[in-house]
């Protein structure tokens, strides 16, 4: 039973960042801009917020520190994403190329800055984890369910689920959401009824940047005690989650859990009894999430419901 708890908790740690970042991907693609720089944005968000924690942890700790760090991660992501928005909306450049540039930039920049400003000159930024909630009051005492979902948890898990709810409401129940989706499907039609396509696309990219930045922090906190300028390709997995989830928030949730479980198997196989005796080298396990992604994509891409105008720069003059 304790193994089941562990697997569920681990799956949460891996799924929630995927969920958050993939939702970011939904917003940007629904507005018509593809953003393969999610990985880089995660790195930037994680970098600034973990560095903040590293600097402040002597004076503060616990949830307040985490909440401020979350804010910093979001702001970093938004600011960084402006580069992508500018390139793909104003300059009408190839969005994949711009995204690739940001993906190359982020880890190099994180390593460079970490080594230049940290006194010991190393690229890893360490932090002590004071954020785990061993048991949520009241809810943690519920039999079974409490153990599964409300013990050894992080506040970020609940924030992630909250973001999911908000995303559903924003995308489907608000004027903003409708306009955003219109810009991704048929920007000229949207423009003809007075929607500012450029502004909506900026909004989409910035939301994705903020969520990716947050996702970077959420990914690093439970799984490590240092940040090493990488999020192990999670931004790319999030893109796959988004496609598997067919650009719909609720489906993205299930996709994220699927990948989270894969990742858990890949990283926690040594504590799962029948897998630990199998003597399979760790490199093989590390491949699992990526192979699973490919297989899933092979089956789910044929009837792809991608926004029609995604990755096509909007030019008012073109027809």
């Amino acid at each position, binding site marked *: 039973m304790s193994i089941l708890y562990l697997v569920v908790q681990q799956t949460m740690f891996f799924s929630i960042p995927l969920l958050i970042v993939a939702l970011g991907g939904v917003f940007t693609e629904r507005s018509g801009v593809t953003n393969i720089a999610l990985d880089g944005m995660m790195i930037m968000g994680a970098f600034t917020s973990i560095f903040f924690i590293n600097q402040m942890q002597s004076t503060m700790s616990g949830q307040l520190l985490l909440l401020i760090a979350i804010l910093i991660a979001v702001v970093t992501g938004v600011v960084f994403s402006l580069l992508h928005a500018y390139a793909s909306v104003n300059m009408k450049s190839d969005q994949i190329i711009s995204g690739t540039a940001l993906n190359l930039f982020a880890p190099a920049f994180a390593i460079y800055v970490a080594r230049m400003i940290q006194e010991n000159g190393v690229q890893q930024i360490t932090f002590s984890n004071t954020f785990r909630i061993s048991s949520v009051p009241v809810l943690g005492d519920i039999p079974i369910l409490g153990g599964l979902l409300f013990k050894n948890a992080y506040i970020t898990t609940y924030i992630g689920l909250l973001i999911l709810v908000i995303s559903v409401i924003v995308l489907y129940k608000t004027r903003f959401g409708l306009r955003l989706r219109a810009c991704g499907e048929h920007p000229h039609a949207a423009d003809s009824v007075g929607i500012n396509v450029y502004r909506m696309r900026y909004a989409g990219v910035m939301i994705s940047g903020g969520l990716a930045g947050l996702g970077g922090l959420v990914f690093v906190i439970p799984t490590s005690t240092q940040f090493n300028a990488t999020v*192990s*390709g999670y931004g790319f997995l999030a893109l796959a989650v988004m496609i598997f989830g067919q650009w719909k928030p609720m489906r993205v949730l299930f996709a994220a859990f699927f990948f989270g479980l894969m990742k858990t198997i890949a990283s926690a196989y040594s504590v799962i009894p029948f897998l630990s005796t199998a003597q399979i080298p760790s*490199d093989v396990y590390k491949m699992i999430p990526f192979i699973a992604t490919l297989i899933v994509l092979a089956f789910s891409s044929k009837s792809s419901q991608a926004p029609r105008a995604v990755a096509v720069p909007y030019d008012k003059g073109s027809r």
Partner: protein
Amino acid sequence: MILLKKLLNIRGFNNATSSIVAIFAGLLFGFIILLISNPSQAVDGFIIILKGGFSTGGKGMGQVMYFATPLILTGLSVGFAFKTGLFNIGASGQFIMGAFAAVYIGVKWTFIPAPFHWMVALLAATIVGGLWALIPGLLKAYLNVHEVISTIMMNYIGMYLANFLVKSTVYDSKKALSMNVAESAVLPKGGLDKIFYNPIGSSGAVDLSTVNSGFYIALVVAVIMFIVLNKTTFGYELKACGFNQNASKYAGINEKRSIVLSMVIAGALAGLGGGLLYLSGASGRHIKAVDVLAAEGFNGIPVALLGLSNPIGIIFSAIFISYITLGGNYLQTLNFVPEIIDVIIACVIYFSAFALLFRNILPRLLKWRMDAAEIKNERGNE
């Protein structure tokens, strides 16, 4: 004035200008970062970057060519895919799988007679690289999986698989590197050892560069790709599919076959690049088997972009990227972090994404200015 106007009408010139502008913008940004992080040494540091491979004489230039060799191949890989309408981010995975194949044969298949050993190893690298790209190619053609996502996944799978295979077959655990390949599998020097070395003292001993005939092979492959793309029906068909799949289908081109073939050729080029880099003897590079994606693969993207996907342009841009990367390594003498080069390269890519703007608007603007000036002159004469 007239000369400038003529130049502006040549497309190649306009294209090269856009790359050069992107390079300058990237370098400027790098300089600003150096200034912010350490104002007193920024100028010295920047000079080291600009001096690049020249900092260490003949050997340094040889090293530039040695590290440019795989970049030419991965650049060709990405560039070829670009020309055929595909974006191959998967050069990393194809590269490392090819590298493993070459090293494996180089170490284990010592039964192959000497002059053929390295050729077989290179051939294997090419084939394995191609096979690694076959999967995304098939997925794209028949199952509509976007090649960007699938090649990224193949990068990670390739990296872990190569690590696993290296560790379980050709690993030297003392050095934590792949083993040296057999003498017969090392690429011949091809006369380059007579040019690129630094003399040690006056005794005639030399500090030899690792550059070898792999560089020639890279150049030949680039020329072949240029011919295939521009002078053959086959290349024309692949390019046509890149422009418009439906139109080429209508014209009787098998568009699915073209997609798969483009991907396989791109992968084969990257795989060959892996073989060329790692079949270079004890002083050359070895596979480290760590969880880091091969940088040569990713750097193929800036190489292809700066070379505007033109095989000949790619030769020059690969040498440039290799050149400043080496400059970055020498930066460590000033306590700067070599990652500054990656930052610069990222900026160069970012600005080359604006290339369209530079290419179309800048010349138009200049031309318009000049036309206006000419009209003014004519009026003045009247």
